[in-house]
C-alpha cells in the first residue's frame, strides 16, 4: 500500500549518491556497503559507528573485557523480564535445579524507566504470584467506573461500553506500573535472582562461528564526546550465558539488531507503533474520582490520525490521576507534533473540567507497539528469545500489554529452563506455548481492529475503525476469516512536507498545557554530557540532504524530549544538533525517521529518565 508520493521519493532517492535502505545501511548506487566519509563537524562519534581498532587515539588502550558466566541473562528489568526471572527461579525451586539468573537493567533503579498508563489486567500477575496481595504488590486501585467518549471540538459524546468490549475494565486495577515493577524486582531478588540496575547491555556476543548467541557485553564508560578515551575509561564486562532473554520493551535496540541478524520478520509484517504520553496530575480534591477509568478518541486528532486518550484516577492516598495520550506513528503529515496534540487535548472543556485546579507533577513518553499478531516476529533464535513488548504484545483496543508481557516472560522461562536441561540451543517450545496460550487467543481475536482504521484507504479513519469494532467485531470476536494488513512500516507513511499543510498549535498556557522543555525537566532525565551521543546516525549527511529538505525535519516534532534541533550555521545552512542529554529513551526517533538513518543505542548505564512510579 505504498502511496504514489512515496514511490516517487524512492525513485528520487535512488538518484542520490547514497541510498539509504530500509534497515539504514549505507550503500552506493552500485549496492556496495560503504564507510561514510567523515563530515565536519562530525555528528556521530559513537564507537558503534567509528571503529576504534582503526582510531589512533585508542592505540594504547587495553580493550580486554572481564568475563563472567551465568545460566540465563535477561536484558531489561520490566514486567516481562522480571516475570521471566521469577518464573525461572520458581522452576528451579520446584525441580531442584540450580541456575545463575542475571537481570541487567539500564535504569539507575528497577522501575525508573517504566512508563505506562496503567490499567492492569491482573491475569499475568495472578498466575505468577497467586499470593500477590500478601506479598504486598502495589495494586491499590480497583476500577470502579469505566467510560468511553468521542470528543469533538466542543463536546464529549459518551459511547456505550458493553461487557465483552475490549475497553471494558471490570476486574482490573489502576496502577503506577513503575512501582509494580520495583516490587517485582524485590520478588526476583528474594528468589535469588541477581538484579543489576544501572547496567546497560550494549552488545550481543556470538559463538566463534557466529551462528549462535553466547551472551552480552555491558556498556563501556569514560568515552569523551569526540569519541576519544577519557582517564576514567573502563571497558564493559561480558556475560556468557546458555540462554539470553531480551526484554527491552517496545523497539529494543538489541532486539532490533537480533531481528535483523536472524531475519526474524521473514514472512511477517513489520511492527507498527504509537507514541504514548503520560502526565501525572495532582487533582483538586473535588474533581477526584478514585477508581474511575476514562478512555476516548477524537479531538484534536483529525479522523485520519490514529490515537486516543486515557484518564485514570488513582486511589493511593492523594488525589492523583494519570492523563495520557497516544498518537499512532503511522501518521502522514510531517508537520504533526504528537506532543503538541497532547497539550492541546487538555484544553477540551471536558478534560479541562477534570484538570482545573490541579497541578502537573510528572511527564513522560514512550513508544508502544500496535502491530499485534500480524507483526509478531519469530520469537526465538539460537541462544535466546524475545519477550514482552520487545516482541510486541499489546492488545491495542484494550490498551493493555502488561498482562501479556508477564505471561510471555513466564512461558519463555519454561522453554528456557527446558532448553538448558536438554542442551538445546534454541528454546523452540516457547513460540508454540505462546500460540496455545490466552495471550495469542486475545491478540488474535482483536487483530483486525487497529488495521480497520485504514479501511477504504483510510478515508473513514477513526469512524471506520469504530464502525468495524461495533458492527463486525462485537459479533465475530475475531472469528472473521480475514486478517487485515497494516500496510507497511510507519516511517514509510510519512509524506514529503510539500504535500502537507503546516499545523497551527496554540501556545501553552502553563496551567493546563506546557512547553516541551519544562515537560522534559519533569522526567529528571540526565546523561553525562561528555560522551558520544547515543542517538547515532548511519550517515551524518542524510539529515540535511533528506530529512530536512524533503520532510522539514520531522524529528524536531516527534521527539517528546527536544533532542533534535536544526540550528542555523553562519553560512545560512542548517545543521542537525542532537541534544542527547534530553533523551528519555522512548525510541520514537528510531521508529519514525523516514530515512531510518537514526539508530538508537544504549547510553551509559544509570542514565536516562528517573520516573517516579510512572
Amino acid at each position: 500500500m505504498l502511496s504514489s508520493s512515496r514511490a516517487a521519493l524512492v525513485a528520487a532517492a535512488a538518484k542520490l549518491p547514497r541510498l539509504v535502505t530500509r534497515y539504514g545501511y549505507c550503500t552506493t548506487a552500485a549496492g556496495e556497503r560503504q564507510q561514510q566519509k567523515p563530515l565536519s563537524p562530525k555528528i556521530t562519534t559513537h564507537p558503534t559507528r567509528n571503529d576504534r581498532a582503526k582510531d589512533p587515539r585508542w592505540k594504547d588502550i587495553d580493550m580486554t573485557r572481564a568475563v563472567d558466566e551465568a545460566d540465563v541473562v535477561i536484558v531489561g528489568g520490566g514486567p516481562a523480564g522480571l516475570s521471566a526471572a521469577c518464573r525461572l527461579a520458581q522452576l528451579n525451586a520446584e525441580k531442584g535445579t540450580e541456575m545463575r539468573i542475571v537481570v541487567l537493567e539500564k535504569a539507575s533503579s528497577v522501575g525508573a524507566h517504566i512508563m505506562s498508563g496503567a490499567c492492569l489486567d491482573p491475569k499475568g500477575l495472578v498466575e505468577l504470584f497467586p499470593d500477590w496481595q500478601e506479598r504486598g504488590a502495589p495494586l491499590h486501585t480497583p476500577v470502579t467506573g469505566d467510560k468511553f467518549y468521542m470528543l469533538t471540538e466542543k463536546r464529549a459524546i459518551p459511547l456505550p461500553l458493553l461487557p465483552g468490549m475490549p475497553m471494558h475494565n471490570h476486574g482490573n486495577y489502576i496502577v503506577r506500573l513503575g512501582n509494580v515493577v520495583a516490587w517485582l524486582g524485590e520478588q526476583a531478588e528474594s528468589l535469588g535472582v541477581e538484579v543489576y540496575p544501572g547496567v546497560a547491555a550494549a552488545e550481543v556476543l556470538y559463538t566463534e562461528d557466529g551462528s549462535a548467541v553466547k551472551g552480552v557485553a555491558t556498556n563501556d564508560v569514560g568515552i569523551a564526546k569526540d569519541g576519544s578515551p577519557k582517564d576514567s575509561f573502563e571497558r564493559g564486562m561480558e556475560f556468557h550465558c546458555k540462554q539470553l532473554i531480551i526484554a527491552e520493551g517496545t523497539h529494543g535496540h538489541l532486539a532490533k539488531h537480533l531481528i535483523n541478524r536472524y531475519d526474524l520478520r521473514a514472512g511477517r509484517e513489520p511492527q507498527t507503533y504509537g507514541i504514548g504520553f503520560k502526565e501525572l496530575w495532582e487533582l483538586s480534591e473535588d474533581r477526584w474520582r478514585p477508581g474511575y477509568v476514562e478512555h476516548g478518541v477524537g479531538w484534536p486528532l483529525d479522523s485520519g490520525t490514529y490515537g486516543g486518550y486515557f484518564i485514570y484516577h488513582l486511589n493511593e492516598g492523594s488525589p492523583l490521576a494519570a492523563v495520557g495520550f497516544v498518537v499512532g506513528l503511522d501518521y502522514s503529515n510531517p508537520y504533526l507534533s504528537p506532543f503538541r496534540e497532547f497539550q492541546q487535548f487538555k484544553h477540551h472543556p471536558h478534560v479541562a473540567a477534570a484538570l482545573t485546579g490541579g497541578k502537573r507533577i510528572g511527564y513522560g513518553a514512550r513508544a508502544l507497539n500496535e502491530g499485534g499478531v500480524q507483526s509478531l516476529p519469530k520469537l526465538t533464535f539460537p541462544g535466546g528469545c524475545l519477550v514482552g513488548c520487545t516482541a510486541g504484545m499489546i492488545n491495542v483496543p484494550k490498551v493493555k500489554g502488561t498482562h501479556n508481557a508477564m505471561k510471555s516472560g513466564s512461558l519463555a522461562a519454561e522453554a528456557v529452563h527446558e532448553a538448558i536441561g536438554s542442551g538445546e540451543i534454541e528454546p523452540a517450545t516457547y513460540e508454540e506455548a505462546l500460540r496455545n496460550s490466552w495471550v495469542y487467543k486475545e491478540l488474535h481475536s482483536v487483530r483486525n481492529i487497529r488495521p480497520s482504521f485504514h479501511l477504504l484507504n483510510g478515508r473513514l479513519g477513526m469512524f471506520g475503525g469504530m464502525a468495524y469494532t461495533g458492527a463486525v467485531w462485537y459479533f465475530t470476536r475475531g472469528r472473521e476469516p480475514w486478517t487485515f494488513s497494516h500496510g507497511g512500516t510507519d516511517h514509510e507513511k510519512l509524506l514529503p512536507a510539500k504535500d502537507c499543510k503546516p499545523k497551527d498549535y496554540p501556545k501553552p498556557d502553563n496551567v493546563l498545557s506546557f512547553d516541551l522543555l519544562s515537560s522534559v525537566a519533569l522526567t529528571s532525565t540526565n546523561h553525562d554530557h561528555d560522551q558520544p551521543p547515543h542517538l547515532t546516525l548511519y550517515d551524518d549527511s542524510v539529515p540535511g540532504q533528506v530529512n530536512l529538505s524533503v520532510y522539514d525535519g520531522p524529528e524536531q516534532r516527534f521527539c517528546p524530549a527536544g533532542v533534535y534541533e536544526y540550528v542555523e550555521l553562519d553560512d545560512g545552512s542548517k545543521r542537525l544538533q542532537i541534544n542527547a542529554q534530553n533523551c528519555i529513551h522512548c525510541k520514537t526517533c528510531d521508529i519514525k525517521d523516514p530515512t531510518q538513518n537514526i539508530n538508537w543505542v544504549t547510553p551509559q548505564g544509570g542514565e536516562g529518565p528517573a520516573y517516579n512510579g510512572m
Partner: protein
Amino acid sequence: YIHIINKADMAASKGLKILVGCKRVIDYAVKVRVKPDRSGVVTEGVKHSMNPFDEIAVEEAVRMKEKKLAGEAVAISVGPPQSQETLRTALAMGIDRAIHVEIPLAQLEKLQPIHVSKLLAKVCESEKPDLVILGKQAIDDDCNQTGQMLAALLDWPQATFASKIEPSQDSKQLRVTREVDGGMETIDVSVPAVVTSDLRLNEPRYATLPNIMKAKKKPLAKMSPDQLGVDLQPRQEVISVEDPPVRKAGAKVESVEDLVGKLREKGLVK
C-alpha cells in the same frame, strides 16, 4: 585526644588511614517538588545518589591509596537504611570497608550537621583516621558546615574547599590548595586533619559492574547513634519550605524614550 603518628616520612610509613564521608541525597538532575503541606520536599520514590562532592572525596581517597600515600580508606554514611547503597557505590569505587550509622526515619528529617559532626567525631575516636575527607557541602541542604564543625570538635586543623591535596615539601604534612573567593590559597596542614573537597579536586571514576560485584564482599558495619552516645535532639525547626517565586514577565520597550519614561514611572530616575 592526642593522636601521634610517624611524622618522619609519610611515604615510607604504611600510609595514611583515611575516613571518607558520603551522604545519600536526591540526585542532582531530579526536578525537586515541595510537599503539598510545605513541610519539606518529596523524597518518596525519588531517585537518590551519592552527593557529588562526596563522590569526589571518595575518588580522592582511592587515588591516594593508588599513589601509596594512603594505606586504608574507610567510607562512612549517616542516614536511612538506603544509605547502604551509597556505601556500596563507594566500595565499588575502591574503598576498603564501610560504616553505616543508621538513623531511624522519624529522626531523619530533623538531622542536622551538628549531629552528623558529633557522630563522625565519635567514630574518629575509635577508628583513629589520619585524614577525614568530606564533601564541602551536601546538595540538598547546602549547609557547608559538617567538615568545619568536625574539625572544631576534634580540635584538628581543617583545609576546606580543597582543589589539590599532596604531601608538603618535607613530606611531614599535607599541602592543600584551597579555592577561595580571591583565587587559590595553598596551606600546609599537619595530620590528623579534616579536608573538604571542592569540584575541581578530581573527576570521579565510574562504579562499574565487576567492581560492584566485588564490593558485595567488602565489610559493611552498622552502628546506631545510641551506641555512639550522641543525642539527636533537633536544634532547629523548619517553619516552611516553599517554591522559589515565579519569575514575573518582563516588558519589552520600543525606544530609549520609552525606557526612560518607564524608569521615571517607577521612581528610579528623576
